[in-house]
């Protein structure tokens, strides 16, 4: 990301637009919004170079609340619009806000391809495992058997894992954070902003109206240390209130072990976010509650050229070798003849 730095430093508050925020009181979106503003302020990003793009859904209201350029587009299509913006103007700093319905259901195709192309955008997927704006239907991340208005007998739709999808689509940056763990969330947003290429951050977001406490296991003070595991590059996978449990590799599968009794830290799986193969990141993305603690942090962060980078390099090269095309040459190309 090579964006202009604002000389005048804005405070996080000053990144707010003049619009009233209209999410339900208590919604997890509020804390994400305030962390994003804080990161923008920390990075001193010039407002005029910022573009927020979204689709449809509660999370997609996001662009209205930031004093930047913004497109609140149509359902699921934000990745395509963001790609168009980035192709046209690689100098802009483009953020995309989506949800589990917008990004993984109606817009799954576009999300997949934006990630595959490694367009330099920051994708924040607010996962609340429900359709909020349409008042509570199960989503592609809702658990099997979920009872909602559209599934009174329990959903028979198998859910998918957003991070597994992103990794399968060759994502170069993949992370997970919780809406309430704001310090960690802030650091993930920092990392995402700094990454060159598509950054995909899944944020567990509580919808207190239609799916309250969906992530209580992962965010509750009492349980979180045993149900979450914080990934750190180059460090062993240790968790638990007393940091006495870890993840060890048994063949190709992870297993939970207790430290002690001959099991040392060195026996544990060490995290490597830079691994060229996505195998480890993928395996981590398959660790679910309650069988496993769910990882948060950066799963994968590798370097790869961006789509728009390669494209504009190619254009530059073509101009260098062929010269800037003139209109006259264009019109007069092909077989021509003169009539007297």
């Amino acid at each position, binding site marked *: 990301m090579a964006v202009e730095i604002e000389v005048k430093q804005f405070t996080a508050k000053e990144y707010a637009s003049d619009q009233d925020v209209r999410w339900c009181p208590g919604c997890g979106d509020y804390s994400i919004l305030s962390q994003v503003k804080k990161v923008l302020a920390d990075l001193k990003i010039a*407002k005029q170079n910022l573009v927020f793009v979204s689709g449809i859904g509660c999370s997609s209201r996001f662009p209205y609340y930031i004093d930047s350029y913004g497109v609140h*587009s149509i359902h699921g299509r934000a990745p*395509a619009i963001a790609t*168009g913006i980035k192709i046209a103007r690689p100098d802009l700093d483009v953020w995309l806000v989506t949800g589990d319905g917008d990004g993984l259901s109606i817009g799954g195709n576009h999300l997949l391809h934006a990630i595959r192309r490694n367009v330099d955008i920051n994708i924040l997927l607010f996962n609340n495992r429900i359709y909020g704006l349409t008042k509570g239907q199960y989503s592609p991340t809702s658990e099997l058997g979920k009872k909602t208005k559209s599934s009174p007998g329990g959903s028979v739709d198998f859910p998918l894992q957003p991070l597994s999808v992103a990794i399968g689509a060759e994502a170069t940056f993949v992370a997970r954070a919780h809406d309430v763990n704001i310090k960690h969330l802030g650091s993930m947003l920092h990392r995402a902003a700094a990454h060159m290429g598509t950054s995909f951050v899944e944020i567990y977001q509580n919808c207190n109206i239609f799916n309250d406490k969906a992530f209580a296991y992962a965010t509750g003070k009492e349980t979180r240390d045993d149900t979450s595991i914080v990934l750190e590059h180059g460090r062993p996978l240790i968790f638990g209130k007393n940091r006495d449990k870890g993840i060890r590799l048994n063949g190709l599968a992870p297993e939970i072990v207790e430290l002690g009794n001959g099991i040392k830290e060195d026996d544990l799986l060490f995290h490597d976010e830079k691994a060229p193969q996505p195998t480890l990141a993928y395996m981590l993305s398959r660790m679910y509650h309650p069988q496993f603690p769910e990882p948060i942090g950066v799963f994968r962060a590798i370097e790869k050229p961006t789509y728009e980078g390669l*494209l504009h390099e190619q254009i530059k090269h073509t101009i260098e070798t062929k010269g800037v*095309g003139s209109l006259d040459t264009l019109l*007069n190309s092909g077989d*021509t*003849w003169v*009539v007297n």
Partner: protein
Amino acid sequence: MTVSSVQSSEKPVEHIDSITVRFAGDSGDGMQLAGTQLTNTSAIFGNDISTLPDFPAEIRAPAGSLAGVSGFQIHFSEQRIHTPGDGCDALVAMNPAALKTNVQDLAIGGALIVNDDAFNKSNLAKAGYDENPLENESLSKYRLFRVKIDTLTTEAAKDTGLGNKAILRTKNFFALGLTYWMYGRPLESTFEWIEKKFSKVPAVAEANTKALKAGYYYGETTESFAVRYQINRASIPAGKYRKITGNEAVAIGLAAAAKLADKPLNYCTYPITPATDILHELARYQNYNITTFQAEDEIAAMCAAIGASFAGTLAATGTSGPGLCLKAEALGLAVMTELPVVVVNVQRGGPSTGLPTKTEQADLLQALYGRNGECPVAILAPATPSDCFDMTLEAFRIAMRYMTPVILLSDGYLANGAEPWQIPTVENLPDLHKSHPAANGNAFEPYARDERLARPWAVPGTKGLQHRVGGLEKANVTGNVSYDPHNHEAMIKLRADKIAGIASDIPPLKVEGAEDGELLVLGWGSTYGAIVSAVENARKNGKSVACAHLRYLNPFPANLEQVLKAHKKILIPEMNMGQLLLKIRGDFLIPAIGYSKVQGKPFRISEIEEKIDEVLKG
């Protein structure tokens, strides 16, 4: 032997003013190439030309099958012509299937050149012939020339060192050479083309050259060809020309628009027949600061174009019917966000997948109304292949001046048909520069209006003009989300008025022929050539007929009503079930008469002439 000596002839020469030749063969027989060469040669020679390729839907249908026949028709003349001809005066059929699918279009007494070698049992069976039509009386109304094209080509190129299969690939040049002799065409430009094209494979170049010459001499030396024909140069306005297809003209128009606006162009698209050639063409123009984005689907293509437009560059997308369906929702977003985007729809036979390689004009109502809500866009329709250039520039002019998406309705016939194009000079092209606002200290109003009701195009990166656009209803001036019922109605009217206002900014509808005659033939799009020719013929026969061609379909030219009401009867020929007809009847409450043709084929001149007679009598 030198080229010039090749062209002298012993045989009598008959003068004719125009001729239509059709090449037909297997899709692997190189018929498109032969047709293109005859076209280029005739254009350079100075004839007026018009061509029509006819592709099979499958790329490689089984050899010898009816489904695999590929054709190319070229009409060249010493008069001004407007169509590739109703039928053909000469047909080259490379196999029985090609004969079967094309012979009904050959004029009685027309020259029928067949590749005798291909009329074997298996090919006859594949084409569904019980007996060899060359052996019975079925072709007696034509002048049949049985030529052993395979044998003669093989013989001609036997010393090139190529294998038999490779040699046989040059048989299209043998057939081409024969037509060159028949119609007195110079060989030079084709020799040059061969040299250039096959410079890396001299043996192939040699074989093609030999096949071309062998075909030419065959006409000269064999007794079966008794006369050759002379078609003089046409008297066309002086200037520099090139041959152009509709798709090429759109591509060059898009690239030229970028230059004239001094902005990069982003062409975001998804491959679809028959629009894909626009992508191919533009992909070669990277040094014109053009990016082509091959999106994951039609929806993404439209959305990426909207993104590129929001970001301040020229944005366009190209598609065909089914793709326009997919783009509909995003087109609505472009209407709501009031961003300039040009959508090129190269119409093809529908519904659904329909007839991908055939032409039709059945997307007019989709273009006008195929979106949710009251969602007007400007719609333009070029009349000829070269008009695609002018109308593409016009599409961008309107898109930027009025901050609106514009649909350009081309079709398969325009896209692949070719005609000579007088190359414009750069100074005569419109200025497409568009200014963007800068902050002036006041709060920015993204939905404020200028005198044309257009909103400002504020570009990201401009300090102080940060604003949000989106699909939710906007309050006028501020652009904030608004659920106010009166604002919604006002905005609907405003968006409609903005598009309607374009009428004062476009040329009036021109009437060719009597301004207030008995009958006006009203058309739009690619039917221009057939209509204008039919009306010319009818007028030569003393009939009171005029024609007018709509290049602007939304809004209509301001004088349309006046033109319509000045004529007693209105006839509207369309390659659909009467879509313009419905609109004209609805808008002007006049009993216009429709004339539909939906066969995937353009109108013949004669069909329209007959209809004119019928309407005048009725």
